[in-house]
C-alpha cells in the first residue's frame, strides 16, 4: 500500500497571485494527496517551519513577482539547516528559462512554468516517491 504523500503549497514573497497555487493545491488534493496551503505573503522561515511541523514530503513554491532567485533557495537552505533536506522543494510561476540552472543548482528539484498540466506535476511527484517514502 502506497503511503499518502503530504505536500505543502506555499506562497513566499509579497505577491498576491494565488490562482495558480490554489489550483495546484486543489488539483493535487483531488488526485489523492494530503495538501496544505499556506496562503499568501509567507516568509521563507514560516514556510520551512510549517513544512517541518506538518511533516510534509514536498514543498511547492509559487511566485510571480520575480523574487524567486532570492526566496526559493532560501527555503531550501532553511530546510537543510533544520535537518529536513529530505523534503523535496519544487517551484512554479513566471520564471524565466535563464534562471532555471541557478535554481536547480540551489536545490529546487523542478520548476513548472505557465501552461504546465497538473499531470506533469503528478508525474514528477510520483517519480520522486521512492526518495521520500522510506
Amino acid at each position, binding site marked *: 500500500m502506497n503511503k499518502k504523500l503530504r505536500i505543502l503549497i506555499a506562497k513566499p*514573497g*509579497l*505577491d*498576491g*497571485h*494565488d*490562482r495558480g497555487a*490554489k*489550483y495546484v*493545491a*486543489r*488539483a493535487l*488534493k483531488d488526485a489523492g494527496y494530503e495538501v496544505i*496551503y*499556506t*496562503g*499568501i*505573503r509567507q*516568509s521563507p522561515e514560516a514556510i520551512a517551519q510549517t513544512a517541518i511541523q506538518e511533516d510534509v514530503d514536498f514543498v511547492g513554491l509559487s511566485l510571480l*513577482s*520575480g*523574487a*524567486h*532567485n*532570492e*526566496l526559493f533557495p*532560501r527555503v531550501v537552505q532553511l530546510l537543510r539547516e533544520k535537518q529536513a533536506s529530505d523534503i523535496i522543494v519544487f517551484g512554479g510561476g*513566471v520564471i*524565466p*528559462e*535563464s534562471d532555471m540552472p541557478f535554481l536547480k543548482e540551489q536545490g529546487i528539484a523542478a520548476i513548472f*512554468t*505557465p*501552461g504546465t*498540466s*497538473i*499531470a506533469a506535476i503528478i508525474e514528477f511527484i510520483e517519480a520522486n516517491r521512492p526518495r521520500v517514502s522510506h
Partner: protein
Amino acid sequence: MPKSTELIKKQQQWENSTLKKVLDRNPERKAEFTTGSWLPAERVALPRITTDEEYLNKLGFPGEYPFTRGVQATMYRGRFWTMRQYAGFGTAEESNSRYKYLLSQGQTGLSIAFDLPTQIGYDSDDARSLGEVGKVGVAIDTLKDMEILFDGIPLDKVSTSMTINAPAAILLAMYLAVAEKQGVSKGQLNGTIQNDILKEYIARGTYIFPPKPSLRLITNIFEYCSREVPKWNTISISGYHIREAGSTAIQEVAFTLADGIAYVQAALNAGLDLDSFADRLSFFFNAHNDLLEEVAKFRAARRMWAKIMKEKFGATNPKTMMLRFHTQTAGSTLTAQQPDNNIVRVTIQTLAAVFGGTQSLHTNSRDEALALPSEESVRIALRTQQIVAYESGVTNTVDPLAGSYYVEDLTDKIEAGVWQYLEQIEKLGGMVAAIETGFIQKEIQEAAYRYQQEIENGQRIVVGVNQFVIPEEPPSHLLKVDAELQRIQIAKLAKVKSERNQEAVKQKLAAIRQAALSPDQNLMPPILDAVREYATLGEICNVLRDVFGEYQESIVL
C-alpha cells in the same frame, strides 16, 4: 424581455423545417454552446426589444440615463479613449525614462506600477522586501523617489493613474507634494488612485489594515479630494483582478458593483454628501477573450450602476450615475507558449473594450507570461490600440454593437446574474461580511477551478497550449531587473534619511498617530505634512499598523 409572439411562432417553424434538415445531416460541433463564462449562447438570437418604450428604458441615448450606450454623447467621435500603459520597474530613474519614452510614442496618460514593498507599506530596507524591490514596479520609499519619478514631466499636462491601494493616501500625498514643488496647484491635477481595498482582500493581496480602518482611509481621501483635488478620481473600483483570479464575467461585475456599493455606503455613513464624492468614483474592468460577452458585460455594468445610484442611493446628478471605467486586457489569457500569438489575443480584447465604451485602456504585452514586458513589446501593445483607433473604423459610431440581438441578449443575461449576486450579498450582510466569511473567494475559486479543468481535459482550447503545440526555443530579449537594484535603493534611502530634519519627522509621525486615534479627523493633511519632511512610506504605515492592526487572510480552498 419577451420577443413578439409572432416571431416565436416563426422561429419554431424555422426550427422544424430548415434547421432540422441541416441538423439531421450535420450535427453541430458541440452539444452545447456557451460563452467563455458559461452563459448559454443562442444559436440564432432574435430581437428582444419590440417597442420604443423598451428601447428608451433599456438603452436610451449615449450620455443619458441609463448610459447603456456610453457615458458621453459622442464617445470616440469626440475623442479616443486614453491610451494608458501600466509601467514601472526598478528605480525611479529607470521608470522615469520609460514614461518619457511612452509619452514620446503617443501615449496619452501615465499609469504607475509600484513594486510590492511599496504596495504593502514596507521600505526597501525591510527584511520582508527581500528580492521584491523594483521587481513588479518602481520602488518608492520617500518623496525623493517620487520627485525623480516625475522629473521633467509637467503634472498639469498629464493624467496619472497610480495602482496603489492600502497606502494610497501616502502616495497621493507624495504626488501632491511633487506638484507643489513644480508649482502646479492641486485643482489642476488629473489622475486616479486605485484605492480599492476590498478587492485586495478578495483577489489581489496587497492589503495592510483590516476593513474598518481601511474604509476610513478611503472616505478620508474622498472627503479631502472633494475639497482640495476636485478633478482627481479618488478610487478605481476594480473587477480586473477578480477576473484575473478566475471569476466569470457575471462575478466580475457583481463583486465590483458590490464593492462600489460598500464604498458609497461607508462614505454616506461617515457623513459625506453623495454629490460631493460620487461623481469621482471610477471603475476598472478586464477585457477577456469572449469578445461579445465582454461587450455585453461593459454595457450591463454601466446600466446597472446608473440604476443603483439613482434608485438605491437617490442620486439626482447624472454625473454620479455614470460608470466611467478603465480597461486592461486579460493578462491571464496570455500564454508563455508561442508568445507572438498574444498580440492577436490582445487585439480581440482591445476591440471588446472599445465596443464596450471604455474611457481608457492598457493593452498587455505579448511577453507578459514570461517576464516584465520589453520596450519593443510595449510598443506593439500600444500600436494595437492605435490601429484600432485610427484604422479599424469601429470608432466612427457610438456603441456599434447595440441592437445586435445576441449582444443585447447577453447584456440582459449578465444583468440578471449580477442582480442575483447583489441580493445574495445583501442577505449575507453586505460585501465586507461576504468577504470576511470567504463567500466571495469561494465563488471565484469554483469558477477558476472549473476553467482550468476544462483546459486540462481539452474541453477549452488554448491555442499553442493544449492544441497546435510546436517545439519551441526558450525566448530571448526578456527584460530583467538588476539584482543589484535593492542595494542601490537601500543606499538612496539611507542618504535621504541622513539628510532630513529628524525632529520634524518625529513630530509629523506623532501627529499622524494622534489623527489615527481620533476617528473624526481626516488623515490626509497630517500624512501630507509628513511626506513633505521625507518621512518614509514604511514609517508612516508602521504608525498606522500600530493603531489599526493588520488584516489576516481567511484561507479558503
